[in-house]
């Protein structure tokens, strides 16, 4: 797997795209060789592990988007350098401990009293200084490449708003609003289509972290942040809030669906439609519109236009509810409406205390919000 990562990085080197500045491999070849050695040793260790040990959905060494792909080789490079330092110093320490241990024959004699040596001390000051310079330059390149990357005209804009304890996604150019499950298009290297995220917070600090796509960036009230991803393959990418935001910080999960261009367009078209009207669930809709639900939730085309909770217009297009805390099944929906604390204790959704009949009608109505 690790070798594959590096091969992909090598492969990208020859590519000519508008994202070239970002995608070019940032470390000089000689240095990269050291990285490769370390990489191979890590790969050897990894292959000795039980299968799938490192094959996890949130591994920073399985990058699938340029920012993460730029960071991973830097990580390996830095680990290689620090690994070498570790081996050298550890060897010296182990040697000293073994070679210079006190022996019975020492009794009564003190060793030669040495007070220092300017030359040696100068040497072990200068070598670290040089290492620092190398590491700094390697890092600075990556920082600027990721952070100062120009935004191409083809980029998709998404506004991410962190709430206690869920994610709101707004697509300003497309008029789409959704929650918890972010849909973005895959970015074909020949026709790059990165997604630029504007990060806002409605309450406390949060942090958006999908390790295989990019490093994390915080969402801070009144402090808009930007980050970008350009996923190079389709699929589901997982992550979660990384900045402690309150009682349910742990269940503020992120699910990113990277769609093919066709899938993405279809998804956008679905999301742009108003909620489906279905006469068979009028009773449930009545319960919804006449209870406190509408204070916090929006369903397009109804009286519900609250903004505190997730937009429910296309609730059934999502795989999970409660920001990934539960699968989106009728049973879970029922439990969530009746007693949210059973799924996510301390979340801000109140228990609705509905009668069984009302609850069943309401869940049936929810099931039509496709």
């Amino acid at each position, binding site marked *: 797997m690790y070798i594959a990562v590096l091969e992909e990085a090598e492969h990208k080197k020859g590519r000519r795209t508008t994202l070239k500045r970002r995608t070019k491999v940032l470390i000089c070849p000689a240095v990269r060789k050291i990285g490769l050695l370390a990489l191979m040793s890590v790969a050897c260790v990894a292959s000795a592990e039980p299968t799938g040990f490192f094959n996890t959905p*949130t591994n920073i060494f399985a990058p699938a988007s340029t920012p993460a792909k730029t960071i991973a080789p830097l990580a390996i490079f830095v680990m290689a350098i620090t*690994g070498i330092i570790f081996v050298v*110093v550890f060897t010296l*320490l182990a040697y000293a401990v073994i070679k210079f241990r006190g022996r019975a024959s020492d009794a009564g004699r003190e060793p030669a009293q040495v007070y220092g040596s300017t030359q040696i001390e100068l040497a072990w000051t200068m070598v670290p200084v040089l290492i*620092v310079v190398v590491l700094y330059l390697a890092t600075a390149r990556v920082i600027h490449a990721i952070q100062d990357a120009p935004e191409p005209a083809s980029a998709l804009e998404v506004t991410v708003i962190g709430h206690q304890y869920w994610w709101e996604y707004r697509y300003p150019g497309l008029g789409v609003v959704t929650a918890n499950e972010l849909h973005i298009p895959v970015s074909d290297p020949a026709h790059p289509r990165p997604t630029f995220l504007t990060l806002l917070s409605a309450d406390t600090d949060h942090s958006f972290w999908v390790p295989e796509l990019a490093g994390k960036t915080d969402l801070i009230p*009144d402090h808009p942040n930007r980050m970008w991803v350009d996923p190079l393959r389709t699929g589901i990418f997982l992550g979660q809030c*990384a900045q402690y935001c309150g009682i349910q*910080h742990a269940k503020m999960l992120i699910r990113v669906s990277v769609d093919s261009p066709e899938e993405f367009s279809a998804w956008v078209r679905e999301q742009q439609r108003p909620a489906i009207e279905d006469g068979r669930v009028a009773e449930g809709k009545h319960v919804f519109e006449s209870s406190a639900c509408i204070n916090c939730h929006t369903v397009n085309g109804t009286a519900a236009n609250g903004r505190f909770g997730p937009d429910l217009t296309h609730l059934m297009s999502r795989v999970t509810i409660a920001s990934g805390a539960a699968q989106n099944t009728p049973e879970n929906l029922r439990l969530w409406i009746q007693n949210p604390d059973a799924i996510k204790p301390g979340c801000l959704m109140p228990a609705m205390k509905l009668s069984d009949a009302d609850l069943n009608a309401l869940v049936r109505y929810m099931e039509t919000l496709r």
Partner: protein
Amino acid sequence: MSSNVITVSGVQIGERPWVDRLHGWLTTVDHKRLGILYIAYGLSFLLVAGVEAIIIRIQLMHPHSGAVSPEVFNRMFTMHSTTMVFFAAMPILFGFSNYLVPLMIGARDMAFPRLNSFSFWLSALGGLLLYFSFLGGSGLYGAGSAPDVGWWAYAPLTARAFSPGHSTDYWTLSVLVSGFGTVGTGINIVATILCMRCPGMKLSRMPLLAWLNLVMAGMILIAITPLSAAQMMLLVDRYLGGHFFDAQAGGAPVLWMHFFWIFGHPEVYILIIPCFAFMSEIIPVFSRKPIFGYPVMVAATVCIGFISMSVWAHHMFTVGMSSYANSFFTFTTMVIGVPTGIKIFNWLGTMWAGQIQFKVPMLFCIGFLFQFLIAGLTGIMLSCAALGWQLSLSYFVVAHFHYTLVGGVVFAIFAAIYYWYPKMTGRMLNETLGKLHFWLFLIGFHVTFDLMHIPGILGMPRRIYTYEPGRGWDTLNLLISIGAFIQAIGVLVFVANLVISYFKGDKAGNDPWDAWTLEWSVSSPPPAYNFASVPTVESRRPLWDLKHPEDPDSRYE
């Protein structure tokens, strides 16, 4: 005849009623008693915060575990970290500073004994306030108990909208009050070292422990004050309608981060520099050689002191600073590795060609060197801002700073306790129990914190009360918890050793380690006011000069 008049041998201290003895301890202004009070107080909190850590680890043994509720978990990690930093590590280190600095520089007490006592009791009050929150935190709202905002308490989570009740107030007040105590101690250490040295003890002849405490105390004066200011601003925000950190009224949550970390990063060095001081005293004695490169060690410490004031925003790589700010703090953070590296090399140089004696204090020192090396190297990784975007706020960071604070600070504290306990109590700690403690704690430490790096790399964020299965975190977390239990057993052995040896330990005598600094020239425990006649020193190792009159250090300095 006159000697009969002034001899007080007829008075047995032990015969005084316990109320009197207690009164004596509560009202003491003696630096040695205050030092022991600090250490005892810090050790008690170390045990309490250790129990909190065990609760955290029990909850995280399995995914979706229900051992404790999320509220309790959040309180536990907040209390664990606040306690460990402010009420365990700092008091223990201040205790050693208090106890050792006057003895090592040939002084009879600290410069301001009553300020010293006042500082200790302020710190003690701070700790009690923090723990009173379990009872008083609910407040009139009936909400909350102990603080649950994390030890860096980022705004706006601390605003009244998000933290009703009084738990956050107890956190703020306890940190504020103990902060005043800390500043008092800082002033006292600086004044003592600059003004109270015995004849002949030039700055260039001070034991490194005194030098490093001088740097540490100077850093306190610069670093603790912004923290106190921020706590006051937070109180103003919460109760007087201030808007320092209130984004809805034009305040800036990022301002709190800057205030907190301009304290928070120097704080790490305030904790580790006294530990460097222990290393610089203990390693030479058990290697039977003087410290290698004394002037460079002093210079490196002073460098660390200065540079550590310019690295704080590496805690903020994810908050959206400009690429130039990120590069700047990457650079300063990497540069601080240079003087730190010098120190490690110089300790190695001290051991080189020595006759290393593997007594328990030295074992802990070697453990410290090994772990602090790794902690420094993972620190270098995290200092790369781009890599920090992935690793900060993850379990990798948790592993990194526990490597410095447990593998570094706690190992150094254990080394110091094994080394100076004979001086403080007059009895040796049991060597066998000590070795058992060392190996249990070492193994537990490495099982826990070596493995803890991996979930971070696999995307596990910190401060989550539960986690999803299937992300490669499950087995690792179980093993990490098992390591924590092994460490806990090691600490229990240590506590047993402290108690048993106090009553049954071998008598220590003045100088059990054949050491060279002035504290070993007086009885164990030292008499009131330390020195019957103020000593005069000729070199950095006055007792070496006494023991080797044919080859005194003073010839070579």
